[in-house]
């Protein structure tokens, strides 16, 4: 990764103090842990709220819900819970190795209480897989979780497309999410094309074009009723 190493590194250092080792189940969620965790949570809240307006939806929501909740030990679980829910939805589409959730260190672990289905089992699974990640996998996973299209840019684009100024926030969020998943589909298909052609290295435009063509055949790309005449 070339740029903006700093926010990731900073987040890494910030969260590194709390090792995500305690393999306890839901008990950790409810139990209160030492003050250190408390301080972390409190400190973390403000930081996270400010920083992550863009990342919130890819990462997790802010910890503001339960300020008394410990962050160090429970956040990995919570984090993994939310990650699970999200990854579960996304994983069917992305058949990569990100089935694990290990990002406790980096991502804005917030969300003290994440209402996802099959919480404890999924969390435990996530924990297990995440702990086995190599550094390379972790960094890639972190990029996967943290990256997002800017809401402001998307809003500007939507305004210019629709001509209407009334683009609500949920709409922007939804379109950003859809676009991110579409990028995922493109990149994954491009990688598949590369393995078919037995090529390696960075993805080249020809692979993306082939992937796009295949997606169009599958009907995953909305077809234009009128041909695009002037670009």
């Amino acid at each position, binding site marked *: 990764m070339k740029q903006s190493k700093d926010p990731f590194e900073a987040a890494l250092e910030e969260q590194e103090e709390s090792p995500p080792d305690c393999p306890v189940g839901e008990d950790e969620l409810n139990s209160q842990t030492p003050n250190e965790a408390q301080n972390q949570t409190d400190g973390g809240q403000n930081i996270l709220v400010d920083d992550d307006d863009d990342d919130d939806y890819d990462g997790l929501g802010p910890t503001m819900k339960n300020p008394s909740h410990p962050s160090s030990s429970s956040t990995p679980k919570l984090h993994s819970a939310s990650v699970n829910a999200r990854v579960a939805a996304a994983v069917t589409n992305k058949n990569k190795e990100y089935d694990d959730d290990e990002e406790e260190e980096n991502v804005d672990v917030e969300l003290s209480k994440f209402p996802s289905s099959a919480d404890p089992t999924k969390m435990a699974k996530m924990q297990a897989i995440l702990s086995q990640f190599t550094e390379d996998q972790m960094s890639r996973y972190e990029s996967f979780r943290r990256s997002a299209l800017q809401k402001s840019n998307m809003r*500007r*684009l939507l305004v210019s497309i629709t001509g209407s100024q009334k683009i609500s926030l949920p709409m922007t969020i*939804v379109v950003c999410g859809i676009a991110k998943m579409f990028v995922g589909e493109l990149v994954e298909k491009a990688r598949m094309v590369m393995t078919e052609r037995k090529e390696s290295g960075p993805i080249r435009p020809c692979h993306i074009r082939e992937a796009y063509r295949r997606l169009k055949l599958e009907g995953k790309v909305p077809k234009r009723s009128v041909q695009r005449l002037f670009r």
Partner: protein
Amino acid sequence: MSNPSTGTSSKAKVGSSQPAEASFKRKRGVFQKDLQHMMYGFGDDANPLPETVTLVEDIVVEYVTDLAHKAQDIGSKRGKLSVEDFLYLIRKDTPKLNRCTELLSMQEELKQARKAFEVDEEKLATLE
């Protein structure tokens, strides 16, 4: 095969020479930085090729444009454009639909949490 480099430079010049029409002209490289990280996260190299990123950005903008046009067509029957129109468009695509409902519910949670947070702060302030 088209030549991506010349295409890029011409678009960039056009974009910069028309600042007044900024709302209608699509500037290049709007999502470049974010897209680089995103593509790395999804499986590309740590440093994706610039022409690849540009191409993906073009494709994504076209995708969003088509999506928004279709949503507008649907929304015009109802009056104005709403989130429901987008959700209706991706109803066939289960992962996307699930992800969007999750995003929306998370946003609701965040809103509630923020409201609760402010109420707490007020209480603390009044107590002291």
